[in-house]
């Protein structure tokens, strides 16, 4: 069995069918830009404020770019039973779910570079530490995608997936230290910030774009890998328990 043929074709089909469609681009890209624009205007800072806003818009772009479509499409395919066709194929569940999530990871990572490219025209990015920023973007995309997968396999209906996604996404945006530094959050909310994966991705990006990071970068990276692995394994467990009944 040439498993890579199955892997590649699942990835290509999902990219064509879902991720490169206009509604997904609008939700995954325009929404985070508008969101960040709102904070930018409110802050009253000029173009020099662009650099400080960049980690925020990158994280939100990844978060919305990855979770917006994956959680809905997996639920949709399961509901329409076309997902059963994948479960009947002679490929392992691990490989199948990696193939299903790869499209979202790539789309999320690509989304992250659009605000960076825009920022390059508005401000000086020569001081950015790309060796930290690029792996952080990739790991954030992986973690967010697996969060989307976890949401998808925890619900039965498409509308539940959308509602459940927002239940995670919006608190994450506020609590991960992007728009409000964690030390300025009420004491009882701070522990919550530290159990959210974007907190660590945002911390790396803030360090990479010169705003200063709170935790050493290796710890941030390790924690992102732990979150990714944990969410992926938890999702596989849920698929085995809930879908192969």
């Amino acid at each position, binding site marked *: *069995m040439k498993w890579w*043929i*199955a892997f590649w074709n699942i990835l290509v089909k999902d990219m064509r069918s879902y991720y490169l469609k206009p509604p997904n681009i609008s939700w995954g890209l325009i929404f985070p830009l508008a969101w960040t624009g709102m904070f930018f205007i409110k802050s009253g800072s000029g173009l020099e404020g662009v650099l400080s806003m960049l980690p925020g818009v990158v994280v939100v772009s990844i978060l919305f770019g990855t979770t917006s479509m994956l959680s809905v499409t997996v639920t949709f395919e399961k509901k329409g039973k*076309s997902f*059963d*066709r994948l*479960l009947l194929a*002679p*490929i392992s569940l691990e490989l199948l779910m990696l193939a299903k999530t790869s499209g979202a990871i790539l789309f999320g990572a690509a989304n992250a570079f659009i605000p960076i490219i825009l920022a390059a025209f508005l401000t000086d990015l020569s001081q950015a530490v790309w060796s930290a920023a690029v792996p952080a973007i990739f790991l954030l995309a992986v973690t967010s995608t697996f969060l989307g997968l976890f949401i998808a396999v925890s619900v039965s209906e498409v509308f539940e997936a959308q509602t459940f996604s927002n239940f995670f996404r919006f608190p994450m945006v506020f609590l991960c230290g992007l728009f409000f530094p964690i030390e300025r959050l009420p004491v009882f909310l701070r522990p919550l910030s530290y159990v959210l994966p974007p907190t660590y991705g945002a911390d790396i990006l803030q360090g990479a774009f010169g705003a200063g990071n709170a935790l050493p970068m290796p710890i941030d990276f390790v924690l992102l890998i732990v979150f990714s692995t944990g969410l992926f394994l938890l999702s596989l467990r849920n698929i085995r328990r809930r879908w*192969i009944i």
Partner: protein
Amino acid sequence: MDKVSVNAISVDRLAKRFEDVQAVADASFEVLQGELFGFLGPNGAGKTTTINMLTGLARPDAGTVRISGIDCTQNPKAAQHLTGVVPDESNLYPELTGFDNLCFCAALYGMNKKKRKARARELLETFGLAQAADRKFAGYSKGMKRKLTIAAGIIHDPTILFLDEPTTGIDVASARQIRQLIADLHQAGTTILLTTHYIEEAERLCGRIAFIVQGRIVRIDTVGNLLQPIQERHVMQLAVSNPDFSLHDKLAEAFPNQIFKTLPGGLIRVEAGEPIRVGPLVRLLEEQGAEVNEARRVQPSLEDVFVKITGIEAAAMRKEKEKKGGGGL
């Protein structure tokens, strides 16, 4: 060669429960290589649950499953390269064309680009869908969707094919075409497990049949063996105008060795262990004021066997069929 390797499918004491419903109970059967085996039962009998357990879409509570000698009970993935599955609902991708759907399904089995394109074209031609190859699956008719779903199930040339209610809910012409395709696949040597609630379909296509009712297999045998006891019976049907309600009792009294059954539409069914003499029957009926329009011998069918063994009236199964919208023979 031992017994296990000869059997394409071996199922031993398979069981599955959904909360308080015992979907499948203690099911054991074997399907020989190259056999077309029928699973016949009403809706909710446990046919789809059994297929799901055999193919890895459901986990058995108890029992063992062997596909081509491979124990798949704990690892259903082990034999998935040998099997093809056509589910009871057409589950291809609505946004893809017929051709792209087949190519995608072929890729799931590791077929390279050249091979999968050639195979997709071949199957579209075989199934009469070549003209619709570039149309999106969402725009296909029900019959076309079923045909493409069957084509997707055999795209990788499986040695064992699971067909779950392949003709349910489609028009008569498409259903006939699909039955011919199933017969052709069987002729070509594919082992087929066919579930259906169409008795005539099972009788026409299958070599052996299992009757399943409320999750239990109540009988497994060849069509010939199932029909044999009933074929020794003589059955006749009389079409009568102005039938009286008391006719049945009077006939039973006058001909105690014969069994009478009044059917809708002025029909009287007569069953006996010896040849039925029509003259005395007609005379009695006419003396009672009824007019006999037609008398014809009825060939006993698998439907009679099914009713006798399961106690389920075939008419009830037919109603389900009509509700699902077609698929008649």
